[in-house]
C-alpha cells in the first residue's frame, strides 16, 4: 500500500450518452481486425524467437537479438489486451513481469543459475517456476545483464535462454489457440448466462483495455523512470538494458491507436479526430532521442519525456470524454487500481 500517485488526473466524466451505434458490429470488427491479427503476429514472432534460440543461444547472436526485439514488439502490441486468454494460467504475467519493484527477476534467475536448477532445462517443469524468471524481462536479463553473464555456467545459461524462449512461445500459442477458437466465439455471442451478458459488456471490456493500456504507459512506462523533478529514476525505465523503454511506449501507442480507431468505426469524424490525437503523441515520442530514458537527470531530456506523458494522459481523458460516451460504456476497474 504505497501512496497513490498524485500525477494521475482526476477528471470528471460527462454523462454517458445512450449508445446509438451498433455494438455487435463494432465488437466483431475489433476481434477480427485488431485482436486476432495481433495475436497471430505475436505467435509467429515467438515461434521465430524459439527457433533462433535453438539455432544459436549466445547472447551475442545477432539473429537471436533480432528475434528477441521482434518478439518483444509483438508482445507490446497485444499487451493492452489483458482479459480472457492472457489471464488464464497466469500467461500474461509469465510473459512480462514488470515493474519488478523488489528485483525478483535477477534474484530468481541467479537462484536458478547458481544451483543449475533442472527446472530451467525443461519447458514443462519451467511452467511452475516463479513468473519473475520467465518471459521477456527474464530473457532481457539473460541477454543483456552483465551481472548475470558474470555468473558463468555458460552451457546452463544457454539452455536456460532456450527454455525461456520455448516457454514464451508455448504461452503465446496457447493464447492464440483460445482466441482463435472458443474465446472469440464467447465474445461474439454474449448471453444472459455467459461471462459477457450483453454486447455492451463486451464493448466495455474492449474500451477498458484501451484506456488501461494508455494508463499503463503514462504511469508505469513513463511515470516510473520520471520519478520527481528532484529525484528522477532512470534505472526504473522499462527494458532499459536492451534500450526498449521508448520503443515500448511507441509500439503500444500504435497498437492502442488501431484499437481506438476500430472502436470509433461508426463515427468517421471521431475516428479521424482520435487518429490525429494519437498522431500528436507519437510525434512527441519521436522527438525523444534517448531510447532508454537514461538522461532524465538533464532538464531538457526530462521535459520531453514529461510532455509525452502529459500527452498520453490527455489522450486517455479525451477517450473517456468522447469515445466512451459514443460507445455508451465507462472505464471500469483495472489492475492498476491497487498500488
Amino acid at each position: 500500500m504505497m501512496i497513490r500517485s498524485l500525477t494521475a488526473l482526476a477528471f470528471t466524466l460527462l454523462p454517458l450518452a445512450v449508445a446509438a451505434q451498433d455494438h455487435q458490429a463494432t465488437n466483431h470488427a475489433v476481434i477480427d481486425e485488431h485482436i486476432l491479427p495481433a495475436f497471430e503476429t505475436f505467435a509467429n514472432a515467438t515461434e521465430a524467437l524459439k527457433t533462433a534460440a535453438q539455432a544459436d543461444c549466445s547472447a551475442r547472436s545477432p539473429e537471436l537479438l533480432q528475434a528477441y526485439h521482434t518478439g518483444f514488439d509483438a508482445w507490446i502490441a497485444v499487451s493492452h489486451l489483458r482479459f480472457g486468454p492472457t489471464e488464464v494460467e497466469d500467461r500474461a504475467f509469465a510473459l512480462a513481469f514488470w515493474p519488478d519493484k523488489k528485483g525478483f527477476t535477477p534474484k530468481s534467475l541467479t537462484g536458478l543459475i547458481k544451483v543449475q536448477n533442472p527446472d530451467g532445462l525443461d519447458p514443462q517443469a519451467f511452467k511452475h517456476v516463479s513468473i519473475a524468471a520467465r518471459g521477456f524481462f527474464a530473457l532481457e536479463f539473460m541477454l543483456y545483464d552483465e551481472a548475470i553473464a558474470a555468473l558463468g555456467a555458460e552451457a546452463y545459461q544457454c539452455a536456460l535462454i532456450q527454455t525461456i524462449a520455448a516457454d514464451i512461445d508455448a504461452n503465446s500459442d496457447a493464447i492464440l489457440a483460445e482466441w482463435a477458437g472458443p474465446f472469440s466465439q464467447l465474445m461474439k455471442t454474449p448471453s444472459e448466462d455467459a461471462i459477457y451478458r450483453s454486447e455492451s459488456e463486451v464493448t466495455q471490456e474492449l474500451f477498458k483495455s484501451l484506456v488501461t493500456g494508455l494508463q499503463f504507459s503514462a504511469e508505469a512506462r513513463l511515470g516510473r523512470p520520471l520519478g520527481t523533478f528532484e529525484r528522477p529514476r532512470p534505472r526504473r525505465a522499462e527494458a532499459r538494458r536492451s534500450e526498449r523503454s521508448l520503443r515500448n511506449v511507441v509500439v503500444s501507442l500504435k497498437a492502442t491507436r488501431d484499437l481506438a480507431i476500430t472502436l470509433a468505426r461508426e463515427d468517421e469524424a471521431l475516428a479521424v479526430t482520435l487518429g490525429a490525437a494519437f498522431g500528436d503523441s507519437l510525434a512527441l515520442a519521436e522527438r525523444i532521442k534517448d531510447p532508454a530514458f537514461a538522461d532524465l537527470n538533464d532538464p531538457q531530456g526530462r521535459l520531453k519525456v514529461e510532455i509525452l506523458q502529459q500527452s498520453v494522459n490527455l489522450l486517455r481523458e479525451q477517450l473517456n470524454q468522447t469515445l466512451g460516451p459514443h460507445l455508451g460504456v465507462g472505464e471500469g476497474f483495472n489492475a492498476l487500481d491497487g498500488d
Partner: protein
Amino acid sequence: MKRALLLSTAICLGASAQAKAAEMAEVLDTYANIAEAAFGDSLTTAKTLQASVDAFVAEPSAENLQAARAAWLASRVPYQQTEVYRFGNAIVDDWEGKVNAWPLDEGLIDYVDGGYGGPSDENEHAVLNVVANPGFTLSGKEIDASEITPKLLAETLHEADGIEANVATGYHAIEFLLWGQDLNGHSAGAGNRSYTDYIQGDACTGGNCDRRAAYLTAATALLVSDLEWMTAQWADGGAGRTALGESEAAGISTMLTGMGSLSYGEQAGERMRLGLMLNDPEEEHDCFSDNTHNSHYYDGLGVQNVYLGEYVRVDGTLVSGPSLSDLVASADAGLDTEMKTKLSTTMMSLGRIKSAAEAGFAYDQMLEQGNTAGEALVMGGVNGLIDQTKTIERIVAKLEIEQIEFEGSDSLDNPTAVFE
C-alpha cells in the same frame, strides 16, 4: 486520487428525483457512520496497543512481548475493515501510507538476516538500520538521528529518498519491531524476535536496545496520533464526511470506487495473486506476524460492510442504516441479489484461507511452488474478488442509467452536443 469518478457528477436533479437524492444522502450517512466507527475502533485498539508497548518497554519479558503482539493483532481487525475507504476518498488515500505502507525494506529500521541482501537498484537505503546508527547520510544530507522521535520517523525517514519501500512508520514497522523477520521461508512460523532485544543493559540482544525501544515507542505514538486525526475527519463536520455531501452521485461513486478498486487491483492482484505467482514467502501482507489470512479476510469484510450498510464494532454493537444494497435493490432487485451472493462467496473463500491458517497451514506455506492445495485456497479468494468486481461494474452501469434518466438533457437526445 487515482481513480476517475465513475458516475456523473454533473447531474441536475429534477423535482421527480428529489426523493432519490434523499435516499442517496441517507446511504451516504450510513457509509460515513461506518467510517467513523471503524476508524474510531482502530484508534481505541491502537491505544490499547500503545499501553501494552509501554508496559513491555518498561519491563521487557516474554509475557509482556506476547501481550503487545496480541494487542497488535487485535488492532488490525477494525483497521483492515477501513481499507475499503482508501480508494475514492482522497482524504484517506493521501493519508493511509503513513499507517499501513507495505511492502517494506525492513533493513531501513533494524538489523536483518544476512540473506536479506544489500542496497538494491531500487533502494540504496534498504539496509540503513536506523536503530544502530545515530547519524547517517540521506539524499546527500547529514541526518542527526541521535534521538528517535515521532517527528524524525514521520518527516525524515518515512519514504526516505522518495522510495515507497522505506517504510518507517505505521502498523508494519511496529509489526517488524515486535516480531522481527520471518526466517522460516515456506515453513510454518512467524518472526521470532526475542524480548531480550529490548532489555536495557548487558543482557541486551541485537544491540542498541535503548534505540530500538525508543523507535517502537515513537512509532506506536505516531500511529495513535495519525488515527486520532483520521477519526476526527469522519465526525460531524469532519472533512471526510463533508466531502461526501457535496454531490450525492459522486458520493455513491466513491463508495463503488472503493469497493471495486480494493477488490480487484489491490487485493486480488497486488496482494494475493502476485505472491502466488512469485512463490515468495515474503510477498504476504502481514509477513512478520504471519497474520495475512486475517488481513485478507477483514479487507473483504470491509467491502461487504459498505454494501450492506452494516459494521460490527469491537464492543459488539452494530452500526447500520440505509444501504447501497437498498439503493441497488430499488433499481434492480436481481442485481442486488447477485451482488450479495458474490460478496458471500468471496467471504466464504477468504474464510477458508483463514480457517486453514488458524489450524496450522500458514499463508506462506500456501504460496510455495507446487503447493496445489494452497494455490487453490488463495485462488478461491482471488476469483471471488474478481467476480464481485464484475458485478460492481454492472451496478455502476445500472445506476448511471438511472442518473441519466433524471436528467433528460442533450446527452440523451443528441449525444454529440455535450462535447461541442
